[in-house]
């Protein structure tokens, strides 16, 4: 019996009436992805099932990967809350789907079992209007307080402004006003000014009484890695409470994605975690390719690995450089940027842009690598090992650095898992979980590499893990170059993959397929898929629901930074205010990834 089937059987045994529908998901069949399975759970049985999954040692689903919603207006139950719970021991993912009616849009919170459900449930409330009785802090998370409506509901209109070109400039100026008026009429643009007044702060449990100070750090602050806001209650210089506030960089990527065709939505994924754009491309493509049942040529898989590891190098360089800079070691930042530039140049050579490459596409790669590319990657392999040693020389034994990082921001393994941490943050706390090893994708199992793990769960461990991961990335890159097979870089499916350019001026069939894929997109079979990759920040997952049309019905991004930020209060407890900067730096959050 497969692991997934055992799980469902166990749930059935304990709660005979809980499972209303367990479909061995044909899309997620066991061989392709470690047997994740969809189980529809009755609403009133959720807590019990989740407790069983989380606490039963045989099951061991100790990690909540994702919790989100899907809206099906016109259907009843209208909403579906979808949880992906994972066993970090073997990587099994189980998808729990809980139907929620529009007449009673509530669901018992699962924060007691999975503390990381805290922010996810707030997000579902914010985006879908489903409330979670028992939740410790049920309020909006991405949209501002006082916002009307729930944006990811399907009947909520896609907002945004028309872009002015010379051809429609005058038109837009005339048009923009009615749009705004309409928005106001429907209440979508009406905001009640409800900032953090003193009473609000008290509601959040922050108190300025008895010699305590409430400090507002961010969202405009050089060491919050973007638009992150921290509400800090200080007792002297020590932190007594800290509350991260997010949403300042919310751009509605998920909403937009549901209005674009599959190839168009790819370009949005670059813009979520903009420092790990290729990982976003990859996770999205893996999910869509699963729905399409596309076979990706080996060469394309290898090049995907190569590009992702280059991207990891660039991202970690920035993480280390910026963290060092924030703790006062400015020269490290300059050195890191110098080397990162080499990789940026490589991406530019590949695609013409440095960051938003969208180079990994559904069905393979946008194009074959430029001829000189592999040679240039060889330069990286030559240059980088020494450079990494150089950074270590500057930091690893530097007493000031040690003073600022050793023993700071402690996070236990249990807390890390419970709060949904992943990536270097989780491994720093001693949990050896790397999705490249645990649930290999894109042929990662063809390459040898080690997964560095920390012992102390502090800022220093996270730093040293990133340094070591860069070495491992170089190791993988070298193997990719050595083993890179010949062959196509695009799947052999003309209904999805754009035909080669030279066929367009010869064959009518190629021309028509190109025209329609580019203008209308391609229909993706009904179904759902959740695919994860190990991004520089951790578990990056895309949950795509297709209704059979050319546009994703649900375009969900599980960004690792979102969950990772939930660990801040645990890490910063009783720290000095100055250590907050080190802690944030060691998480390496990308706010585009948090807020999407």
């Amino acid at each position, binding site marked *: 019996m497969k692991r997934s089937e055992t799980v469902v059987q166990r749930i059935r045994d304990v709660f005979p009436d809980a499972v209303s529908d367990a479909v061995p998901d044909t899309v997620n069949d066991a061989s392709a992805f470690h047997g994740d399975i969809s189980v529809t759970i009755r609403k009133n049985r959720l807590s019990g099932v989740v407790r069983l999954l989380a606490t039963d040692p045989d099951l061991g689903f100790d990690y909540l990967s994702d919790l989100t919603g899907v809206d099906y207006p016109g259907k009843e139950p209208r909403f579906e809350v979808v949880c992906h719970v994972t066993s970090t021991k073997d990587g099994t993912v189980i998808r729990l789907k809980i139907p929620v009616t529009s007449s009673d849009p509530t669901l018992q919170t699962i924060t007691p079992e999975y503390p990381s459900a805290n922010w996810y449930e707030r997000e579902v409330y914010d985006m879908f209007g489903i409330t979670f009785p028992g939740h410790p802090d049920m309020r909006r998370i991405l949209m501002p307080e006082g916002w009307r409506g729930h944006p990811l509901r399907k009947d909520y209109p896609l907002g945004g402004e028309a872009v002015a070109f010379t*051809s*429609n400039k005058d*038109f837009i100026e*005339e*048009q923009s006003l009615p749009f705004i008026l309409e928005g106001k009429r429907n209440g979508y643009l009406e905001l009640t000014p409800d900032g953090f007044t003193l009473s609000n702060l008290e509601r959040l449990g922050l108190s300025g009484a008895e010699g305590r100070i409430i400090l507002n750090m961010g969202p405009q602050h050089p060491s919050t890695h973007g638009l992150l806001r921290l509400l800090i209650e200080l007792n002297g210089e020590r932190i007594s409470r800290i509350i991260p506030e997010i949403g300042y960089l919310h751009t509605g990527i998920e909403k937009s994605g549901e209005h674009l065709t599959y190839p168009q939505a790819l370009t949005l994924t670059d813009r979520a975690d903009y420092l790990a754009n290729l990982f976003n491309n990859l996770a999205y493509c893996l999910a869509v390719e699963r729905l399409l049942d596309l076979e990706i040529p080996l060469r394309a898989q290898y090049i995907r690995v190569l590009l992702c590891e280059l991207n990891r190098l660039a991202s970690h360089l920035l993480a280390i450089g910026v963290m060092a800079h924030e703790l006062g070691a400015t020269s490290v930042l300059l050195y890191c940027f110098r080397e990162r530039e080499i990789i940026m140049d490589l991406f530019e050579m590949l695609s013409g842009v440095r960051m938003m490459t969208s180079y990994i596409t559904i069905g393979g790669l946008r194009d074959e690598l430029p001829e000189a590319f592999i040679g240039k990657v060889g330069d990286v392999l030559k240059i980088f090992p020494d450079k990494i040693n150089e950074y270590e020389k500057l930091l690893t034994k530097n007493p000031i650095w040690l003073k600022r990082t050793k023993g700071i921001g402690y996070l236990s393994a249990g807390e890390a898992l419970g709060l949904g941490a992943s990536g270097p943050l989780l491994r720093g706390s001693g949990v050896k979980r790397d999705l490249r090893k645990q649930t290999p994708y894109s042929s990662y199992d063809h390459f040898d590499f080690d997964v560095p793990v920390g012992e102390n769960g502090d800022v220093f461990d996270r730093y040293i893990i990133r340094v070591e991961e860069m070495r491992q990335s170089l190791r993988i890159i070298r193997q990719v170059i050595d083993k890179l097979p010949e062959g196509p870089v695009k799947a052999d*499916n*003309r*209904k999805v993959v754009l*035909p080669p350019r030279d*066929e*367009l*001026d*010869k*064959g*009518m*069939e*190629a*021309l*028509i*397929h190109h*025209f*329609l894929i580019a*203008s*209308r997109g391609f229909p993706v079979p009904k179904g759902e898929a959740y695919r994860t990759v190990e991004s520089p920040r951790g578990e990056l997952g895309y949950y795509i629901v297709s209704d059979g049309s050319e546009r994703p019905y649900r375009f969900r991004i599980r960004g690792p930074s979102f969950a990772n930020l939930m660990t801040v209060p645990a890490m910063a407890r009783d720290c000095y205010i100055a250590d907050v900067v080190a802690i944030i730096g060691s998480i390496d959050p990308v706010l585009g990834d948090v807020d999407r």
Partner: protein
Amino acid sequence: MVTLRIDDRETTVADGTMIIEAARGIGIEIPHFCYHPKLSVSGSCKMCLVEVEGLAKLVTACTTAVSRNIVVRTRSEKVKEAQRATLSMLLINHPLDCPVCDKGGECPLQDYTYRYGPGKSEFSDEKWHFKKPVDLSPLIVLDRERCILCTRCVRFQEEVAVHPEIEVTERGRGSFIEVARPEGFTSNFSGNTIELCPVGALTSRPFRFKARPWELKRSPSLCPHCGCGCNIWLDVREDKIMRVLARENPPVDGGWLCDRGRFGYRFVSHASRLKTPLIRKGEGFIPCTWEEAISRVIGGFKKGREVYGSESIRGLASPKLTNEELYLFRKFFQEVAGTNSSGYTLNGDLMIESLRPADCSGLRRFSFQDIDEADSIFLIDGDPSKDLPILDLRIKKAVKKGARLFIAGSAEIELSDFASASPIPVGTELNSVPEKGGKGGFDRRFSGEIRDSKRSVILLGRKTDPSEVESLCSFLKELHDNGGGEGWISLGVLMPAANTQGAQDMLSGDTILNSQGIKYGVPGKSDVPDSRVKCLFIARQEIPDITNLRNHLDFLAVYDIFLSDTARVADVVLPAAAFSEIDGTYTNSERRVQRLFKTTQTPGEAKPLWEVMTLLAKATGTGWDFHSSRDVMREISEKISLYRYISYEEIGMKGSYADGTTSGPRYYR
């Protein structure tokens, strides 16, 4: 009835149904190019091949009738292979035009190739070439390389329009579509061939290269050009109408459009549309605000009333305006200006007012579908081909089915070719051969023919002499009452303008003004110019001898979309909204009320007439409370008993008869 299985689904259909139709009935799509439900079967494209169990070869679903208990497969490997092969063959000579082809994005050839065709071409030789593009007419461009010779266009012209002006010439591989007549492709239904063409071979000259289908926003509307009220789609990009397509409403238009309706849209976005109110300054005009213009108009009216009395104030509205506009127009002149003399223009079609329902009670009120059921059709002094073109198609279809057509008229018309008997001689007015009490030639010639029919339709055209109408009605009533069953004779008037019927309904009871100067009187009895008129408000109407009229007037205000010759001599010119810029309703010739939707913005400060009338009323201190045309319709349904069941909800997308249910027959009372 025959029961058969298609793709493992059972269906029961009438004998003689083709497989393609049986499949469509249960929602199974069989790809096709040459087949069209409203045209004869051709069976030439071979796209609809299906497998019938027991038959060695695949059969074309459009030419094979169902038979008992056959098992049809539309998605078997054999069928898929045939579909791939058919598409490959069609694409061999298809030019690489998608990037520059108007059809791209809404092209059945593209869609089928994506869904059923191969991804790669196996053909590498030179493609077949023709000179291209070829202008078939000033409106239609033919690209022979793109043509797949499905002959839908040829069949449409031959069977539906009955203008067989295009044909397939040459043979085999070298055959192509050609204009068959020396006078060219002049059919006034030619535009339908563009919509029928399953590839980009026939394209519209005005729309050519203007927009991609996915950039267009499609909104429902009505054709504003005649009394048919054909339903249309407006495809709009950046607030500009890019093209007009048929929106099928079978009882009204049967899914076709005439060329006037299809191509007559560019005036809406013309650069010379009036954008601001204008007031006279010396020989010319200067732009002004609405406040200034409104106070000018009110001033003009006030002065006229003081000097000459309220009978000197007149309003003259065009039947191009919507019911809502016309209603408030009349309300203003009646309630605010205190004159009973607002009216609408008929361009001399005075007979329309002279048909009194009481004279013909018991007769069926004409609805378009009556033509389909009639076995005799009588056309009196009217030319549907010119005035209500879409009725022309209906009449031709009825004649084809066996109905007899009789024509009485003063001019040779297109439908004369379809008449069953020689028409009353050309040049003979209906009443010019008077016989017993002046019933004219009509009853002398045709009373026997009417008596012989089971269902008869009598249509009065615009040239009918108004003085004849009364006697004609009583003649028909006599025939009807002595014949079989209620409503076996259906009587209708061919209303020439989009809302002539609506104008009659909204303004009935008022004095009729016509456009030949400002003459008035009981229709048909008085042609005396009314010298009392001193202040005139003309809405959306051109007056032919306006300079002459202007000399008698003290004050003239004109509301129009262009600075017409009439507007040029006005004291105040108000910018008007065109049909796509207003919410409202039109009532067509069969008294079906249908909706117009605001789709594009009015240019500059132009306003719909109902808004202008509300402004004028407000300026005189009368408190009108109309904020939308919906408000006006609410009052119409309260005040005009004929429209008491009409509301925007009731009208919906298909329209609703003002004087009865949408389905059942209606009678004159």
